[in-house]
């Protein structure tokens, strides 16, 4: 395994170094802006997105005051991450008056439909699992 790891490691280093050289070739101005965006991305995740997720989860579990069903977490993962992907279209930042074929949907409505669907499916799964538990007292060890 050591041989594989060393080979892989050197390959990785070589590819990354090639990328760094390509980046240097694009000139100092380009490099400065790129490095700012590279560092900014890490900062936005580590100092904003991750702590906010923890804070939000803390508040939700305090407000509801008990263990949340797993399905709610699944719903939150789906809706939360897909909403991140939706930011550029929801804001329509790239829209141009001279090109009606670009960003040509009602994205707020689309997102709302997606959010509603996620909430409805999540609620249905929670209700189904509650009913299942209610009709079958004393679940066996294999049940979740």
């Amino acid at each position, binding site marked *: *395994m050591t041989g*594989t*790891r060393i080979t*892989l*490691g050197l*390959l*990785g280093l070589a*590819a*990354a170094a*090639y*990328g*760094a050289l*390509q*980046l240097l*070739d*694009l000139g100092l101005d*380009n490099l400065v*802006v*790129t490095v700012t*965006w*590279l*560092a900014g*991305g*890490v900062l*936005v*995740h*580590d100092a904003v*997105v*991750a702590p906010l*997720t923890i804070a939000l989860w803390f508040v939700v579990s305090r407000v509801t005051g008990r*263990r949340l069903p*797993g*399905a*709610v*977490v*699944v719903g939150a*993962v*789906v809706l939360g*991450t*897909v909403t*991140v*992907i*939706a930011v*550029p*279209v929801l*804001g329509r*930042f*790239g829209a*141009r008056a*001279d*090109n009606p*074929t*670009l*960003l*040509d*949907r009602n994205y707020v409505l*689309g*997102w709302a439909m*997606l959010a509603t669907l996620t909430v409805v499916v999540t609620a249905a799964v929670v209700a189904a699992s509650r009913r299942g538990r209610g009709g079958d007292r004393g679940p066996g060890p294999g049940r*979740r």
Partner: protein
Amino acid sequence: MRIPSDRDFTSTLRSPAVAARVGVWLGICFGLAFVTGLISHEAYVVHPVIPFPARPTWGYRVTQGLHVLSGTAAIPLLLVKLWTVFPKLFARPPQRLRQLAVDGLERASIAVLVAAAVFQLTTGLLNTTQWYPWGFHFRATHYAVAWVAIGALVLHIAVKLPVIRAALGGDIEDSAQDRPTATIAGPLTRRALVRSALLASGVAVLATAGSTVPALRKVSVLGVRSGGGPAGIPINKSAKAADVVATALSPDYRLVIAYDAHEMSLSRADLERLEQHTVELPIACVEGWSASGHWTGVRVRDLLDLVGAPAGRDLRVESLQPRGPFRATTLPGHFADDPLTLLALRLGGEPLAIDHGYPCRLIAPDRPGVLQTKWVGRLEVIT
């Protein structure tokens, strides 16, 4: 308030067992995006190492669609993966100098990996919506950072290989590799967390893929293009944005074909009198959208025969647009001679809309959309 330590994170969900499994899928997405990205890069280069093939006609449509969709699919996976390993950021550095140096190097490589991964997914996502809030050259920078990202990823796999093998070899709920303080069960199982990340990826793909998969147009509520446009094909750059409205509509318009000292100029009516061919070819854009159309026009090879140009010569295709990086493009010889390569005058049976390149545009098989030059004013055989 003290700085948190990795010991403060107690959920058993933040485990290498989850990180390794999500990581496998993330690795597949990044690998796919990297390979298809290299293909796209080759398609843009005038003389790549291996000549870019003109078949299959839908090749670039599929590879670039996969490129954008694999990047989109990676976003939920990356967010979940970063969530599971977040405690590592707060691990106390080792005391011994040697271990400290090794730890520092590993952290630096992870920082590069995370920075490059977030950068690639963010810039790629924004590019699909034509939103450019930055000052760097997108295409060249996205290409350079792709090498950094894939290199840092391969290095990361090399460093973590023993952990990955142990995690994937054991049961997902096995706590053998967990941090000592990760003892409190989460609201769902680890298996369910991995599945929810995959589900989110799937939803993200379905919600956006309609821009390139016609069958999903109604489902893709977040798709950048619904597929509408003149003659059922979207446009990327309008005639107004390219500043060609007056020259393209001018009655004095002439197409100039040049080979050495031979030069010929043709009006649109002259072009219509030449033998017409209809081909079905897609417009496939680097931004990941694509649409197929029925184009009618004159074979480029027939036009080259008018000036006696031999086969196999590269062709310089110039647009009427006064500026822009793709004002003039080079069409390699094997594309110029291809019977499917047309100077199109009509789309879907209607005269070409001005935003599609009226009076005439290039349409060739298996090429990025931006190289399918619109408002063609001059074809010059490169000698």
